[in-house]
């Protein structure tokens, strides 16, 4: 599904990913964990094609297509979805209007309005999103948790093939966290070929969505890969110690 091959990425003359490689197969769940500034969000932005992140070398292939030739919107239309760490507020455009237009773009203009409304209401109810949030400006005045739930609502409506969840847990209370992951799990049941890349600081979320792989990233490189047990080890030993061990591990 997605193959990242030795990418080096810089922002403002600072290299944040160095010879970074990662392969994510169809239907698999990967988690990237790492300390602040290790390059986690750089990875998500680079996959999505944020023009501020300059790729100096390497390749990213998505479903046999060179992603680097595509603009961010083309990548989105190919089925990549980035749930933002800090979703943006856009005044004057209602949430429902935004979702309907985005779905229309994905489906090349043909959308059944009745089905869209039915879906939007059903998914909002699944996520316990208050009904008035659909008619309000996109993310305007939403709480941190509501913004994150709204990202998941967009995901469910747009039906992507590859999910990047960038700190989806931040700003969510424990009940909302469970609810968000219940929705993501249900989505993956409905679309089992979907791959997921979760970026987080919080190993507790691994119990809500068990990953196939956990990667520890430090200074722009993966320093260790394991399963969800690696998250538990991280809890007891911290990033610093794991990184030290990694020198031997390598």
């Amino acid at each position, binding site marked *: 599904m997605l193959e990242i091959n030795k990418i080096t990425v810089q922002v403002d003359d600072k290299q944040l990913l160095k010879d970074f490689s990662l392969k994510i197969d169809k239907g698999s769940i990967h988690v990237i964990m790492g300390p602040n500034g290790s390059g986690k969000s750089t990875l998500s932005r680079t996959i*999505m*094609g*944020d*023009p*501020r992140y300059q790729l100096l070398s390497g390749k990213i292939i998505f479903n046999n297509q060179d992603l680097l030739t595509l*603009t*961010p*919107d083309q*990548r*989105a*239309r190919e089925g990549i*979805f*980035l749930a*933002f760490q800090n*979703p*943006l507020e*856009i*005044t*004057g*455009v209602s949430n429902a209007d*935004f979702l309907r*237009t*985005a779905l229309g*773009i*994905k489906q090349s203009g043909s959308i059944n309005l009745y089905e869209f409304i039915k879906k939007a209401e059903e998914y909002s109810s699944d996520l316990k999103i208050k009904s008035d949030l659909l008619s309000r*400006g*996109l993310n305007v005045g939403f709480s941190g948790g509501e913004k994150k739930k709204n990202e998941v609502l*967009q995901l469910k409506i*747009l039906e992507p093939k590859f999910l990047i969840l960038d700190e989806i847990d931040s700003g969510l209370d424990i009940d909302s966290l469970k609810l968000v992951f219940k929705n993501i799990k249900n989505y993956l049941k409905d679309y089992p070929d979907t791959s997921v890349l979760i970026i987080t600081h919080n190993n507790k979320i691994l119990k809500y969505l068990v990953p196939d792989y956990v990667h520890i990233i430090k200074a722009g490189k993966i320093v260790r890969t394991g399963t969800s047990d690696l998250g538990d080890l991280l809890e007891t030993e911290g990033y610093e110690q794991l990184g030290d061990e990694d020198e031997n591990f390598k």
Partner: protein
Amino acid sequence: MKILSSNELPIDYQINKEELLIRAKEKQEIYLENVTCSRIKIEVFENSQIIIREIKDEDVKPSQYDIILKENSQLSYNRFHKLNNYHEDINIHLSGEKSKIIYNASFLITDPHNCCLNIYHDYPLTTSIINNHGVISKEGYLDLTVNAYVPKGKIKSYLKQENKVIFLDDNKSVIKPNLLIEEDDVEAFHGASLGKFNDEEIFYLQTRGFDKDSATKLLVRGFLYSNLDFKENMFCRINKNISEE
């Protein structure tokens, strides 16, 4: 040209080639579209609460607006204008205690335009809330002056101005917000910003499948809509103008 009531209360107005005079009272809602007179004069009667919604998207040029509010009256004036290559003066007189103007203007500019908005707090306890949202593209240039006057003795007046301009191309503009206040017992605020849309906003929309052009149009729409108390069909009209530009 259209002069219509939006809530079926009849409108008291006189019109000739030079001037449209509206005498607004009670709770009228008035819709104006492409008025061709060179002057629009609006008198808001005592104890009235009036909403005016105006669209100007054809090549008509009323160059002067005179708005007079009497005691304890309130006017919410909402304008969408496609402004090109002319000068306009807008004079608002708060001519009675507790009179209040909420003036919301959203405009698209593709040629040089010059606008001078004067708000006169002629009585104590008066309120003016001014919101200008402009989108400038192509050869557009805006010279916007907003003067608010509070003479000595007009106590407990409240003034708020927010002027925001977005450039879509390599445009330049000047905003001059002037609070000319002689009285101490007044609350006054003003803000002005000029610049392009944030790259992060465009990127966010791109990640949802909008190409750069559609993302920009959506942001323009939101920026212009959010400033106006308009009806749904009027927003469609703005959208048509955005698409054309």
